[in-house]
């Protein structure tokens, strides 16, 4: 009796998170999937419904249309947007890693006393709205903005730099916004690392730099992977930053998606774009999980 009850109790406890995921992630995904297979219509909602109800199921299945997906391959805009998004996300990830790694390392090696303070400093930006922080960058980067004023007054430049509304601004925005997502997993890995391993490497003749490449970096690979994915995945689909900081020539898939949904009101195509984006991101996530499994086995 007791065993039976605990069996059910355990099932219920496990079921709660799955239920949550099903209601708030799986169901919306299925709706988007459904819309992506329907045809555009000038109506409310702006698509021809498919799959509504279980009656005439076979007929409904025949109504399924891959037109939207075919359309994505026909218009070069989408492929360009995907490639450009991946490129921007990749470059941003590398820059974030290059900035984040020394930061995380310095934090991990900092005296115990000030470490919580440094950690706080990394988390602090989250206390302000993401949108407001991106707007703040407009103020910094615009032609008469803070950065240009500073550089002009220092005499480094004599003409204001055009940063805002270019890809440069997008890179700056992404690197700034996603840096904590790189630093935190890196810090977690580096902080766990036994510093005596570095001493042992030095003792055996490795220079500080040699010990860094041969000991610290290999042992922090899980952190590098986790941080890179946490930056890369949302950066690929980023919409706010390219929209606010990027120029008209900044092509990113998140923005294309938004334009399809709200300017063109083409929900089916927008849904198809979203599904393809999701599939693109599933690949690196699966690779990452495979590597995690192999590392832990």
């Amino acid at each position: 009796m007791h065993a039976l009850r605990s069996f059910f109790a355990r099932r219920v406890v496990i079921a709660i998170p799955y239920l949550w995921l099903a209601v708030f992630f799986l169901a919306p995904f299925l709706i988007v999937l459904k819309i992506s297979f329907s045809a555009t219509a000038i109506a409310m909602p702006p698509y021809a419904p498919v799959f509504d109800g279980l009656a005439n199921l076979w007929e409904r299945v025949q109504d399924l249309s891959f037109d939207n997906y075919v359309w994505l391959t026909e218009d070069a805009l989408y492929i360009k947007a995907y490639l450009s998004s991946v490129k921007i996300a990749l470059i941003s990830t590398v820059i974030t890693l290059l900035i984040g790694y020394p930061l995380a390392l310095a934090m991990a090696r900092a005296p115990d006393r000030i470490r919580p303070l440094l950690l706080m400093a990394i988390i602090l930006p989250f206390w302000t709205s993401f949108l407001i922080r991106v707007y703040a960058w407009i103020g910094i980067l615009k032609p008469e903005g803070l950065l240009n004023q500073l550089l002009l007054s220092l005499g480094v430049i004599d003409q204001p730099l055009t940063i805002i509304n270019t890809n440069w601004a997008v890179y700056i925005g992404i690197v700034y916004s996603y840096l904590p997502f790189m630093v935190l997993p890196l810090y977690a890995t580096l902080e766990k690392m036994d510093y005596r391993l570095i001493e042992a490497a030095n003792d055996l003749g490795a220079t500080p730099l040699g010990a860094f490449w041969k000991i610290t970096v290999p042992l922090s690979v899980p952190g590098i992977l986790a941080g890179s994915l946490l930056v890369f995945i949302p950066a690929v689909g980023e919409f706010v930053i390219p929209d606010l900081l990027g120029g008209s020539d900044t092509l990113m898939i998140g923005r294309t998606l938004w334009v399809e949904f709200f300017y063109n009101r083409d929900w089916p195509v927008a849904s198809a774009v979203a599904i393809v984006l999701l599939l693109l991101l599933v690949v690196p996530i699966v690779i990452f999980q495979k590597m995690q499994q192999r590392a832990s086995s």
Partner: protein
Amino acid sequence: MAKMLGPVRRAFQPWNDPSQPPFIEFRNVTKRFGDFTAVDNQSITVYEREFYALLGPSGCGKTTLLRMLAGFEEPSEGEIFLDGRPLTGVPPHKRPVNMMFQSYALFPHMNVADNIAFGLKQEGMAKADIAVRVEEMLRLVKLQDFARRKPAQLSGGQQQRVALARALAKRPKVLLLDEPLGALDKKLREETQFELTDLQESLGLTFLIVTHDQEEAMTMADRIAVMDHGRVIQVATPAVIYEAPASRYIADFVGDVNIFEGRIAHLENGGLTMTTAAGFTVEVAEMPQGVARPQAGETIWFAIRPEKMVISHERPPNATTNVIEGEVWDIGYLGDVSIYNIKLDSGDVVRATRLNASREVERPLTWEDRVFLSWRPDAGTVLVR
């Protein structure tokens, strides 16, 4: 110390040879961490091929001395010399010493062979030579079959061997061992102690070991430096440390000891007679060390090891001095020896041990027996500190 006490492992006493140059020399070395003085103006000399132990409780500064020699810490004051050359400012990776870490610090992402080869690769040794050396090291520590294993797949004893092989692979001038056997169980520890001394002798290396385990230091070292609060308080062979400790602290730290406070009654024939606070008279065959002229009436301490006292049911005939009477208070049977805690009439508890030489004893000592403890005049030492 003029007269040598007890056995010395081999006819090897460079510290008694003034022509012998020091190999490792700490010269007036002080190390401070903030307000804390870890090592307080200490000078230590270690000779080539010596097995030297720094013994003391945790926080006594022994590990700091080792880390300064390895280059992980720089002395706040003073200088360290190795083979005549000052080490000041030389970074760890350029020092011809290798360390075996307490936690072993094996590289978890490398297999056993790569761990051992790490130092050799840093040296830029040719690949073929590295393979030969790694093979030789694996044979030395009897781990030939484990070359491809990762450290996590090894037992504690095997990890310890890998750490040793890795530290020895570069043939360092000095091998530093930081509590090398702390993580091993007793049986393995004893085996390893003898293996380490054999290895040290056959390789002809200088070993500097840090330990808080007096047994470890006693079995392995040629000389032991006993440390306390950042100072070396006695440097001597294990036998001298044990039989002629320089202070009550050392007598108590190294092995078991009974210490009695008393006053010198009179001095005679190079020895003395003292009256203890517990009310018995002790006759000692030697003078206390560290004082030029002991005076009658001076407060001193008498130290005697438990195994140096004889326990008997009857009062030893004709004995007036060096005998005390008491009651068996506690018995600890250890198999090879038994420990007896004897409560004196004064209330003091004295510890004595007896070898269990025969399997059956006609009249065994048991609780609440009235017994006598007696010893020869040369069995104990007098201490002034």
